[in-house]
C-alpha cells in the first residue's frame, strides 16, 4: 500500500493520466502542489506570465494534438484570470482540465485572503466542475475530470482543490482508478441506424446537395471518413471557420469556408441547395445570417454528438445524435451498398452552377504597387511554408485573412478562437503548439491590437526557448472594429485607433528575441524567407499593411446567406 499526500496524489495522478506538460502559475493555495511538482520530473511545468495565457497554451496544445490540455493555478485572482481562457475553450468544445488551488476548506465562505468561489464563477463556462472534499478522492476526481473533458462533446473541466486537501504530512492510500463510470453521463457511441439510412436515401435523391462540416469533424477525429464520403459522393463541401482542415482546401470539391466572411461560392451554394448534410457544426449566427431567411429550399440532415446542438437555431429534418466518425463510417457502408446512385445529370448541372459562382468571385483582392496587402502576406506565408505550418491567430481582420488565404489541407493546423473570439489567444496558443511540435513551423498571425493583449508571454518564450514566428499584420488600427465603423457608422472611428504603438522590434529585442520590420512591398518575400530560416529564434515580424483594407466577402447584416458585399462597392 502506497501512502501519499494529497499534493503528491495530484501530481501522481497526472503522471498516470500521461500528462507531459502543464501550464500554470503558483500562489499560496497551490504551494503544496507546486512542491510536489518540484520533487518529480515526469510532469513538466511551463511558467507563464499571466494565467489567461496558461489556459490558451493548454488550449493550443489540445487543438493541435486532440488531447486534453492541463492548467494549474492558485485560488482567487489566479483562478479568475483563467476564466477568459476557459470560456474560449468552452465555446469551441476544447478538452481541458484546469486545476485551481482554493483556500482551506475550513476558511471557505469567510472571505479569506485570495478566496473566490471558483466553482460558482466558472459554472456557466465549463462542461463540468468538481471540488475535492477529501484528499483520498483526488485520483478519482482527476480521472473523472479528464474523462468528462475528453469524451462526448469535449470541453473544459475545473477542479477546485482546497489547500488542506494537499497538506504534505497527511498521507492516504493512493489508488488510481482504471476506469470511471458515471451513471448520469453516457455519451452516444453510435448513431441511430434508421436515421442514418434515411439520411443516405436523401443524399442519393438530392439534386443540389452540399456538405457543411464543422469543428466537430476535427474534434471527433473523423476527417478521413468525411473525406472518403465526400469523394465517393462527388458533392461539394464547405466548412466552418472551426472546421478548416477537415477536408483538404486544395481539393476541387472544396468550395471554401462559409458564413459571414466565407466564399461567395459556398454561401451561394448553401442558399440554393436542396439538401444540407451538416456534420459536427452548429448553425451559429456567424454562419446562418438571419435564421428566418436561411436556405429556404434545403432539407437538413444534422449529425452531432451533442443533441442540444441539433435544432437549436435551425430545425433538422433528420437529426442524428452520435460520434461523427462512427456515423460517417456507417454512411459510407450504406452508400457503397446502395442500389440508388446520385443523379449524375442533376449533380453535373449543380457543379456547373457552382463553377460559375466560383469563377464570378473566388477569392480575390486588389493589389497595390507599393502598399503591402494583408492578404498577400498570408499568401506568401502559405507558399513559403508549403501549406504545412501550424497557424494560430487572434481575432479580427488578420484572423479572417489568415483563414481565407492560408489553404489548409490537414486538420488541427488552423488554431483560432472561433466561438468566443478572444483577442490575446494567438501567441500563447502558438507556444502550446510549438512546445509539442518543436520541428514544425508555428506561425502566430496577429494584429497590433490583439498581440498586446498577451504580449507578456514573450518572456515565457525566452525562458523556455519557444521559437514561434509572430506575424504582426500592423494596420495601426483595430481593423475589424474600424471596418464595421466604416460600413455601419459612417466611418466614425470611435476608439478603434491604436495610438502610441510600441516599437515592436525593440520590444522583441528587450525580451531576447529577434525583431524584423517589413514596410516595403519588395522586401516582403525575401524578408519572410529570412525569418523562416531562423529556425531556433522567436522572430517578431512587424509588417506595415494597408490601413484601409476590408475583409470581403461579407454577409449583409440580417440578410440571407446569399446577401453579401464582395468589395467596398459591389453588393449582391
Amino acid at each position, binding site marked *: 500500500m502506497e501512502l501519499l499526500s494529497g499534493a503528491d496524489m495530484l501530481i501522481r495522478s497526472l503522471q498516470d493520466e500521461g500528462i507531459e506538460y502543464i501550464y500554470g502559475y503558483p500562489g499560496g493555495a497551490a504551494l503544496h502542489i507546486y512542491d510536489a511538482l518540484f520533487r518529480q520530473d515526469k510532469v513538466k511545468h511551463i511558467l507563464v506570465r499571466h494565467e489567461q495565457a496558461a489556459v490558451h497554451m493548454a488550449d493550443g496544445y489540445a487543438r493541435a494534438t486532440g488531447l486534453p490540455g492541463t492548467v494549474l493555478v492558485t485560488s482567487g485572482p489566479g483562478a479568475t484570470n483563467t476564466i477568459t481562457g476557459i470560456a474560449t475553450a468552452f465555446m469551441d468544445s476544447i478538452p481541458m482540465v484546469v486545476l485551481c488551488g482554493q483556500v482551506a476548506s475550513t476558511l471557505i465562505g469567510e472571505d479569506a485572503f485570495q478566496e473566490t468561489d471558483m466553482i*460558482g464563477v466558472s459554472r456557466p463556462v465549463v*462542461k463540468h466542475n468538481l*471540488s475535492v472534499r477529501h484528499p483520498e478522492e483526488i485520483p478519482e476526481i482527476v480521472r473523472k475530470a479528464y474523462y468528462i473533458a475528453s469524451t462526448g462533446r469535449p470541453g473544459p473541466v475545473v477542479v477546485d482543490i482546497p489547500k488542506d486537501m494537499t497538506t504534505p504530512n497527511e498521507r492516504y492510500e493512493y489508488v488510481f482508478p482504471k476506469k470511471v463510470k458515471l*451513471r*448520469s*453521463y453516457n455519451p452516444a457511441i453510435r448513431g441511430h441506424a434508421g436515421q442514418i439510412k434515411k439520411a443516405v436515401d436523401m443524399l442519393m435523391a438530392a439534386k443540389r446537395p452540399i456538405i457543411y462540416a464543422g469543428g466537430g469533424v476535427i474534434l471527433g477525429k473523423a476527417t478521413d471518413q468525411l473525406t472518403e464520403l465526400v469523394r465517393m459522393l462527388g458533392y461539394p463541401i464547405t466548412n466552418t471557420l472551426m472546421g478548416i482542415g477537415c477536408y483538404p482546401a486544395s481539393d476541387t470539391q472544396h468550395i471554401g469556408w462559409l458564413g459571414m466572411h466565407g466564399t461567395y461560392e459556398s454561401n451561394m451554394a448553401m442558399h440554393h441547395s436542396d439538401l444540407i448534410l451538416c456534420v459536427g457544426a452548429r448553425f451559429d449566427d456567424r454562419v446562418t445570417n438571419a435564421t428566418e431567411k436561411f436556405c429556404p429550399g434545403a432539407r437538413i440532415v444534422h449529425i452531432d454528438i451533442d*443533441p442540444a446542438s441539433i*435544432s437549436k437555431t435551425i430545425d433538422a429534418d433528420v437529426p442524428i445524435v452520435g460520434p461523427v466518425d462512427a456515423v460517417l463510417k456507417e454512411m459510407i457502408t450504406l452508400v457503397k451498398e446502395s442500389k440508388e446512385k446520385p443523379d449524375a445529370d442533376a449533380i453535373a448541372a449543380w457543379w456547373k452552377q457552382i463553377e460559375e459562382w466560383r469563377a464570378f468571385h473566388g477569392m480575390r483582392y486588389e493589389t497595390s504597387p507599393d502598399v503591402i496587402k494583408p492578404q498577400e502576406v498570408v499568401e506568401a506565408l502559405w507558399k513559403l511554408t508549403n501549406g504545412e505550418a501550424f497557424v494560430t491567430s487572434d481575432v479580427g481582420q488578420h484572423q479572417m485573412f489568415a483563414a481565407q488565404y492560408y489553404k489548409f489541407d490537414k486538420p488541427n493546423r488552423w488554431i483560432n478562437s472561433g466561438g468566443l473570439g478572444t483577442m490575446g489567444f494567438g501567441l500563447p496558443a502558438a507556444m502550446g503548439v510549438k512546445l509539442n511540435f518543436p520541428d514544425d513551423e508555428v506561425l502566430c498571425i496577429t494584429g497590433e491590437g490583439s498581440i498586446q493583449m498577451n504580449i507578456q508571454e514573450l518572456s515565457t518564450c525566452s525562458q523556455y526557448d519557444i521559437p514561434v514566428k509572430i506575424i504582426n499584420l500592423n494596420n495601426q488600427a483595430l481593423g475589424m472594429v474600424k471596418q464595421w465603423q466604416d460600413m455601419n457608422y459612417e466611418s466614425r472611428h470611435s476608439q478603434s485607433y491604436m495610438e502610441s504603438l510600441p516599437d515592436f522590434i525593440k520590444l522583441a529585442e528587450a525580451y531576447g528575441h529577434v525583431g524584423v520590420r517589413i514596410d516595403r512591398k519588395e522586401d516582403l518575400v525575401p524578408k519572410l524567407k529570412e525569418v523562416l530560416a531562423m529556425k531556433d529564434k522567436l522572430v517578431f515580424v512587424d509588417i506595415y499593411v494597408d490601413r484601409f483594407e476590408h475583409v470581403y466577402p461579407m454577409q449583409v447584416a440580417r440578410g440571407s446567406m446569399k446577401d453579401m458585399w464582395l468589395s467596398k462597392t459591389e453588393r449582391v
Partner: protein
Amino acid sequence: MRRIISVLLENEPGALSRVVGLFSQRNYNIETLTVAPTEDETLSRLTVTTTGSDKVIEQITKQLNKLIEVVKLVDLTEGSHIERELMLVKLKATGSQRAEIKRTVDIFRGQIVDVTSSVYTVQLAGASEKLDGFIQAVGTSGVLEVVRSGVSGIARGEKVLSL
C-alpha cells in the same frame, strides 16, 4: 405552454445551482421549483414548471440532460399525470367571516390548521389552479400571507421515473 419537468439529480452540493444557473444563463423561465431527497439518498427529485414554445422546451430538456449531475428527466405534461401543490395561507377571520371561510375551506377540501381569535391558517393541496381558485374565492383583501410549495408531479399509471 406550461410544462412540468421532473428531474432525478445526483444529491450532491452544487447540483441544484447548476440547474438554476442553466435557466438564467439561457434565458429560460422558472415558474416554480421544488427539490427534495428521494427514497434513494443519493438522488434528489426536482420539479420545475416553466413556459415556452415547443422549441424552447426541447432545448430546456436537452440542456438539462447535458448537465453531468442530471441522471434522468421527464416532461410530465407530455402524458397524463398528477400535479399537486401545497399552500398555507393566513386569513383574516373575525365575526361572520369565520363561518364563511370555514365553508369555503370545506368546499376546497382544505383544513384549518391553526386558529387565533382573528386569524385562520389554512392548508390546501391540489393543482395550482385550484389553489388560485381558493384565493379568488376568499378574496385577496382578507389574505394576510401565502406560502406555496411549488408544483410536484408524478405520471399516472405504470410509468415510473426511476433508475
